[in-house]
């Protein structure tokens, strides 16, 4: 009888123990074994990589370069940056707060010696992408109309977006090497609070994405033929853009802390798969819609819930992946087939 009681007590403790550990996070010791020192510049978005030099926007220090373990501030400390991006040729551009008189931004471009050069661009930019120089802006002559621009160009790539969208829209870029001059605009329809519209722009020509997708698109890929769209609620759609099919049996979860209100950070690997960080693993979505969880290879040391990736930069020449994080600065994955993650 006594032995039975002891056994029951042990089993009860074990049951309580297992019952208390059902959550989406990794195991505690796994999380601990992957912790890395936190950087003192805050959350970092990686803009571009130039050899051993990295350009990043940080929440605490503004626009920075990082080389040989040294962070260097690049923007004037007296003028907080309102918008920042890398152009399609990896030049860094930033705009301080708008001029209170005209309501427009003055854009600056860093030349090769990291000296800001004022650009002859005068408009109110309110959405930019990180890596391909896309921008949605209002001109100084109108505070209601907004257009799509690229690489600080004077002429818009597409106009009259205000006739289709409300102002709360998201801009999702794609690497030129995957599909040239391609960007997706996703958001609420003009004057609507519950109807979403999505426009795919390829070389300035717009295509309406299947209206069945009635949710915010937070990640996408497009290779000229096949499109993948991931919605805010974790649903995956695949098709050619105009006709899309929802994968009814799939709902993905991804960390949103620190990146709320923006498209989730993604990259497209050498095989054309859309890859991004999930809550506990990485996801890879093939152009045909096949979803694969990645818990090995580069994900082994990067999938911890300790790390929240804010941005990726995939070098298609070397196959190296770079990224910025919310707390841990920058990282480099030299080879996506391996499990090495170098914290910079």
């Amino acid at each position: 009888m006594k032995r039975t009681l002891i056994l029951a007590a042990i089993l009860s403790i074990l049951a309580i123990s297992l019952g208390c550990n059902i959550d989406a996070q990794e195991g505690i010791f796994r999380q601990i074994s992957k912790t890395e020192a936190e950087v003192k510049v805050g959350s970092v978005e990686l803009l571009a990589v130039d050899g051993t030099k990295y350009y990043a926007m940080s929440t605490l220090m503004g626009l920075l370069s990082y080389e040989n373990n040294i962070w260097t501030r690049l923007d004037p400390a007296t003028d907080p940056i309102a918008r920042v991006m890398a152009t399609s040729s990896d030049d860094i551009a930033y705009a301080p707060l708008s001029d209170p008189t005209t309501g427009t931004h003055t854009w600056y471009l860093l030349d090769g010696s990291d000296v800001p050069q004022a650009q002859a661009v005068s408009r109110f930019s309110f959405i930019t992408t990180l890596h391909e120089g896309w921008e949605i802006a209002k001109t100084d002559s109108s505070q209601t109309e907004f257009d799509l621009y690229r690489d600080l160009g004077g002429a818009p790539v597409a106009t009259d977006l205000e006739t289709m969208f409300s102002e709360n829209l998201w801009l999702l870029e794609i690497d030129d090497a995957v599909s040239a001059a391609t960007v997706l605009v996703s958001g609420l329809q003009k004057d609507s609070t519950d109807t979403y519209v999505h426009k795919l722009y390829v070389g300035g020509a717009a295509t309406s994405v299947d209206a069945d997708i009635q949710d915010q698109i937070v990640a996408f890929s497009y290779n000229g033929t096949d499109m993948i769209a991931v919605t805010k609620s974790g649903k995956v759609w695949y098709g050619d853009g105009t006709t899309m099919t929802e994968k009814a049996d799939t709902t993905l979860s991804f960390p949103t802390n620190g990146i709320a209100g923006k498209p989730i950070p993604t990259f497209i690997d050498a095989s054309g798969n859309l890859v991004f960080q999930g809550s506990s693993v990485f996801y890879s979505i093939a152009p045909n819609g096949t979803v694969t969880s990645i818990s090995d290879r580069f994900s082994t040391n990067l999938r911890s819930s300790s790390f929240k990736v804010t941005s990726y930069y995939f070098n298609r020449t070397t196959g190296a992946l770079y990224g910025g994080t919310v707390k841990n600065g920058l990282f480099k994955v030299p080879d996506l087939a391996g499990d090495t993650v170098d914290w910079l």
Partner: protein
Amino acid sequence: MKRITIMVLILAVLAPVFAADATAIGQYQMGSQMFTFRAGPVIPLFFYFFNDNPSFVSDTHLKTGGYGSIRYQGFTNSQIAIGGELGYYFAYPRNDDLLTSVPLQFVASWIPVQGTIELPISLGLGFAYNSFAQSSYLSMFASAEIGLSWYFTDQWGITVSAGYWLIPEIYTDAKRIDTSLGNFSPIVVSISYRN
């Protein structure tokens, strides 16, 4: 040669202990009690992930932490005491998140050498509530410990002990790849009161 030197050193340290034992009078009897306040650093040893290759992770990314506890034991005979211990352990990893553990364990101690100098050997088994970042985990907890005590009065003594903790983290669901063993070594200084 090195091994022989270490053995000689250990014997040299223990010699006075056993010398004391030869003259010691049995200190305890059934019903004797001991209260202990304990504190000291805890050295992380390694993690063992069953489903990883390699499984052994010696760089835990944990810094040396701290532990404090209270222990109460009653003697069942002249050498064996049983009781319980409630403690609090904390340690920082490489980032600013904090690992905490609150172990509650049943403890059995054998004190073969008694008197002014004592040599307590203890085994513990219980469970611990572990927290880290956004996660928490109720685990089993096992410990083993050997100490060296000096009683500077009849009732009050100080003990230095070294031990081993085993904290298993067991999952049966999709997280079973994270099933692991946490291994730690506490170095504890204790103040004991006995009657």
